[in-house]
C-alpha cells in the first residue's frame, strides 16, 4: 500500500475542483461535437438548397430551410433510369428485413434451446460448426449461394434475399440463444418433463417467456445486419427487388450534371433511420441482454 507519511496530501480548494470539473465538461463536449459533426453536416446539407450549398459554408446553418431535397430523395431521385426516389427500395428493405429477422430469431431460439438443454450426441460439434459459420466471410459464399438460389428458383427475388439472410444469421442467433439458455438450470427442463410437458411445450411455456432480453439482442443485431447489408443486396437482387442500401449507392453514383448533395444526404439519412430507431427504442434492452447472467429460479 501507499506510504501515507511520504505522499504529499492533496487538498483541493472548492475553486480548483470547480475548474477541473469545468475542463472535464468542456472536453466531453468537444468530443461529443466531434462525433456529431458528420450527422450535423448531413442534416444541415439536406435542408439547404443546391444554390446555398454551392455558395455557402459546409458547416453553416441553412439560411433558408427547405424540405425539397427530402421530397426528391423519397420519391423523385433517379437510380439509374428510374426516378422514383428511395421509397420502393425502402419498402423492399422492410419486406426483406422483417421476415428475415423474425425467422432467423425463431430458428435461432429453437437451435439454442436444443443445443443448450437437449444435449444430443454430437451437439457440441453441431454448435461448433454453426459458430464457424459466423466467421465465414460474405464473399466466400457469394457464388455457391447464387447457385443454390438458382436451383431453388428464387434468385433475384425478395424471398431469395430473405433466405440468404436467414441462413447467414443463424450462426449468430443460435450463439445468442444457446449462451442464454445454457445459464438456465437443466433441472427446470427435468421438472417440466416430470410434469408431463414435451419438447415444444417446455420451449413455449418456460423458455420463451424468459427470453425477452435475448430476443431483443437478436432482433437488434439481425435487423442492423440485414438492413445495412449491401453485398448480398447488390449480388442477389435485380431491378425491382433491390434493398435501400443498393438504391442509395445508385442515387449517389448516377447523378447527371450537378451533384445534388442535399438529396444524397437526405437519402442517406432516410436509409439509416430504421436502425437508429431500433437502437433508440430497444437499446437499453440490448445492453441488458448482452450482460444478462443466470436466471434465478
Amino acid at each position, binding site marked *: 500500500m501507499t506510504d501515507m507519511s511520504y505522499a504529499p496530501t492533496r487538498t483541493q480548494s472548492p475553486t480548483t475542483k470547480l475548474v477541473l470539473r469545468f475542463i472535464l465538461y468542456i472536453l466531453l463536449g468537444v468530443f461529443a461535437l466531434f462525433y456529431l459533426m458528420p450527422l450535423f453536416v448531413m442534416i444541415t446539407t439536406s435542408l439547404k438548397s443546391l444554390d446555398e450549398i454551392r455558395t455557402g459554408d459546409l458547416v453553416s446553418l441553412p439560411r433558408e430551410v427547405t424540405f425539397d431535397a427530402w421530397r426528391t430523395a423519397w420519391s423523385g431521385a433517379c437510380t439509374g433510369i428510374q426516378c422514383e426516389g428511395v421509397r420502393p427500395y425502402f419498402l423492399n428493405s422492410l419486406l426483406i428485413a422483417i421476415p428475415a429477422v423474425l425467422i432467423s430469431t425463431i430458428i435461432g431460439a429453437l437451435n439454442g434451446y436444443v443445443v443448450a438443454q437437449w444435449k444430443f450426441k454430437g451437439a457440441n460439434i453441431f454448435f461448433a460448426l454453426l459458430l464457424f459459420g459466423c466467421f465465414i466471410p460474405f464473399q466466400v459464399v457469394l457464388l455457391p449461394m447464387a447457385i443454390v438460389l438458382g436451383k431453388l428458383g428464387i434468385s433475384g427475388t425478395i424471398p431469395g434475399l430473405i433466405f440468404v439472410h436467414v441462413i447467414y444469421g443463424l450462426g449468430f442467433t443460435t450463439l445468442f440463444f444457446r449462451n442464454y439458455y445454457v445459464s438456465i438450470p437443466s*433441472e427446470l427442463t427435468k421438472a417440466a*418433463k416430470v410434469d408431463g410437458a414435451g419438447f415444444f411445450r417446455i420451449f413455449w411455456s418456460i423458455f420463451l417467456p424468459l427470453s425477452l432480453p435475448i430476443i431483443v439482442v437478436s432482433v437488434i443485431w439481425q435487423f442492423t445486419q440485414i438492413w445495412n447489408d449491401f453485398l448480398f443486396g447488390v449480388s442477389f437482387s435485380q431491378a425491382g427487388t433491390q434493398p435501400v442500401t443498393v438504391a442509395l449507392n445508385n442515387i449517389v453514383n448516377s447523378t447527371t450534371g450537378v451533384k445534388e448533395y442535399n438529396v444524397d444526404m437526405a437519402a442517406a439519412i432516410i436509409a439509416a433511420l430504421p436502425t437508429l430507431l431500433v437502437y433508440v427504442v430497444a437499446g437499453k434492452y440490448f445492453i441488458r441482454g448482452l450482460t444478462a447472467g443466470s436466471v434465478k429460479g
Partner: protein
Amino acid sequence: MSPILEVKNLYKNYGATEVLKDINVSIEKGDFLVLVGPSGCGKSTLLNCIAGLEPISGGDLFIGGQNMTNVSPKDRDIAMVFQSYALYPTMTVAKNITFGMKVRGIDQATQDAKLKHVSTQLQIEPLLHRKPGQLSGGQRQRVAMGRALVRDPKLFLFDEPLSNLDAKLRVEMRTEIKALHQRLGASMVYVTHDQIEAMTLATKIVVMKGGVIQQIGTPAEIYNRPANLFVADFMGSPAMNLIPAKTKANGKGMQIEIARKDADPIVLTDTRNTDLPENVIIGVRPEDIVDAALARTDDTQQADCLIDIVEPAGADTFAVMQLGGKHVTARLHAETTAAAGTAQRLAFDLGKVSYFEPETGLRLN
C-alpha cells in the same frame, strides 16, 4: 401386493464409465427410502434413472408392478422435488403448481380444487400470486413440495431438497417432510448426502459408494450393525471409532488388546463374540465409551485413558484420545470431570460392538 418400486440389476454407464453397478432395491407402499452416500456415489443418478430422466444401460425398473424401464417420465406416475426447486421463474406460484395438470388437460374446476387443497395443506395460500423470485428459500421449498403433492403420484422423488436451506430451516423442513410422509402414507425415495437426514427420515436406507450399494437396512440396522468399514465410518456423527486390535481366545471369551502409545495396552474381554481372527478392526460408537463414574450398565469394562482434547457440545462433551494409533472419540456426560492432558477412567460397552476384517473391511460378527 407387488412392491411400489422395484429396481432389478440396474446398470448405468456413461460411455465406458460404470456409474451404477448391479443395483437391486425394492420398497413397499408407504416406505420412505433414503439413498445416502458421499458426492459422486451415484445416488442422484439412480434417482434420475427411477424418474426416467436418465436412460438406464441394463436391468429393469418396476413402479407399482408395471415395467417402467422404457416409459417416459410423464407416464411413470411420479412427482419430483429438485435440489434447486426448479420452479418456473415466469409463472406465479399457483401456475407453477397447476402447470402439470394444465399440460395433462385436467379441467379448471379440478385444478382449482386441488390447488386449494394443497396450498392449505402447506400454508402457502398468501403466496399464490407471487413469482418464485419474490419468495424466500423456505417458501420456494414449500411451493416445490406443493407442485409434487398436487400430482398425488404413486411415488415421490426428492433430490437433496434441503441442501440449499440454512441449518435451522433445514431441521424444520425435515420435520415437516417426516410429518407429511406420516400423514399421507405416501411412498418416497429421497436422496441426501447428509447421514442425519437419512437416519431421521428413512424407514429404509440404502448406503452407496462408487455406484455400488454398500448396505440396505432400517436406520437402526445400518447404525448398529454396519456391513463394512465404509458404512460404519459414514453413518453417525461423530463417526464410529474404528480401532485396530488383536484378539486371543481366553477362558471367558475373546480377549481384545488395543495398543497404546506410552502406556500399557487396553485389554477388554468380549463374551458374546468368540470366533474372531487374530487381527481385527473394532468398531465402537462414541456413546459406548462413557465416564466410568456415570456408566449406567454394569456390562462395561473400564480403563484409564489419557484425554487429548475435550470438546463441550452442550448436551454432551466429547473427549478425544489416542488408541491403537487412531483418534478415538468418547461421548461423555456434560458434567464430566475430564480435562485435556489428564487421565480419565472410561467405561467401554461392548454390547453393540462391531468387528471388521482389516483387509476386506467386511463385518465379522
